């Protein structure tokens, strides 16, 4: 599977003796938008953490853009949005984005930060501390942080959960834009409708096992709950 954006091979992840992921094999081609479904505790977050290089595999291998493990080159092309927003409360909006722009090697971090603040509608508070922001503003700032280096791979852990309308619209617009530019997206989600609109593929994890991966068909878009009716419970 050369040329894959993500190549996950027979990955096991143990927490002690408890297998959180069991022999997960998954290939994601460039340009795919994969919605990862599954109950809480099914291993979605664990898998995303491994893909983001925040966690190691117990067995198996993961390669990102053809490079085994997590080279700094692969990390530079990856944007991550996890459960936490990853924003420093004591720094201003602009300083937050500049910091991550610098870390990701963006050409002109200062200007990039300002551009992105404008895109997410925070340019009027660029110099205010993130601590003073409302929840929605913080979320938009977090979205800008994950997107500002124009990543070729986006790893989003339940991105639509707890987002307000404006942030959801923003995130969908940005995702569509990155997808149009050929980027790959992997997101875990419970919000079937929001996710399925963008998804080209979907996968289902049940107790650490990947039980399905396939294209998103128009039928699913019409009735997303079909997924759970057919694959949902195994006991």
């Amino acid at each position, binding site marked *: 599977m050369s040329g894959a954006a993500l190549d996950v091979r027979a990955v096991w992840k143990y927490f002690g003796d408890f297998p959180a992921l069991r022999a997960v094999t998954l290939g994601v081609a460039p340009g795919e938008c994969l919605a990862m479904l599954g109950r809480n505790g099914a291993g979605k977050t664990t898998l995303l953490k491994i893909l*983001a*290089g*925040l*966690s*190691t595999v117990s067995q198996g291998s993961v390669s990102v853009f053809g490079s085994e493990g997590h080279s*700094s*080159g692969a*990390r*530079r092309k*990856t944007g*991550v949005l*996890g*459960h*936490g*927003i*990853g*924003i*420093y*409360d*004591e*720094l201003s909006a602009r*300083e937050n984005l500049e*910091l*991550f722009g*610098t*870390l*990701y*090697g963006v050409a002109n971090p200062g200007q990039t930060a300002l551009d992105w603040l404008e895109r997410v509608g925070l340019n009027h508070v660029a110099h205010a*501390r993130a601590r003073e922001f409302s929840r929605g503003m913080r979320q938009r700032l977090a979205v800008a*942080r994950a997107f500002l280096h124009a990543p070729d791979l986006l790893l989003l852990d339940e991105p639509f959960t707890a987002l307000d309308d404006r942030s959801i619209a923003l995130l969908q617009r940005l995702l569509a834009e990155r997808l149009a530019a050929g980027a790959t997206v992997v997101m875990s989600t419970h919000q079937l409708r929001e996710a399925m609109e963008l998804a080209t593929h979907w996968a289902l994890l049940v107790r650490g096992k990947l039980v399905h991966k396939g294209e998103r068909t128009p039928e699913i878009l019409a009735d997303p709950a079909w997924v759970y009716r057919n694959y949902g419970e195994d006991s």
Partner: protein
Amino acid sequence: MRHVLTIAWKDLRSELRTKESINAAAAFSMVILVLFSFVLDISGDAREFGGGLLWLVFAFAGALVLNRSFAREQSNDCLDALVASPLPGWALFLGKALANFALLAVVELIALPVFGILFNADWLRFPGWIALTCALATWGMTVIGTMFSALTVNLRLRELMLPVLVYPMLIPVLMAAMQLTSALLSGTGITGDDWVWVKLLIGFDIIFTSLSLALIDVILVN
């Protein structure tokens, strides 16, 4: 290397904006100085106990700064964002250690003159040696403190475990710094017998800095 400075600058900037831990550490160091004045029989001469007292103050007050180092990253899962970025683990560690070192140095610079006045100690008699001792010992404290702050960042009982782990690890550094500082305060300066402590400080710094840089990735990526 640029990343190291980016991280150090980020930490310093957020700390200087609130001055939370530095104010707390400076205030706490004053409290300890006063407390010690009750314990020790002070006849206006800090020669015998000065070194010990000073480094206990630095160690206890410094711990406040060091504990915050990685705890600061925890609030919004910022640590995950940093680890997922192209920033190498060693650069993250060094950057945070540099910031902590600067903050501890500020606390020490506040505490030293106060100590000098309250305990009638002539701490400026050997300025070069005092600076060297402080620099070496503070770096040792910083490395251990930063490393264990990272180690315990996700632990349930971190407040309990940190002092139990950190202070014994720090004893070598503190012991050496106390011996040297006492020698400097008493006016004898560094003599032949004291060199072993200088060597110990240098060795400690080198060994624990290398160990930390080698092992930090293991701690950050689980």
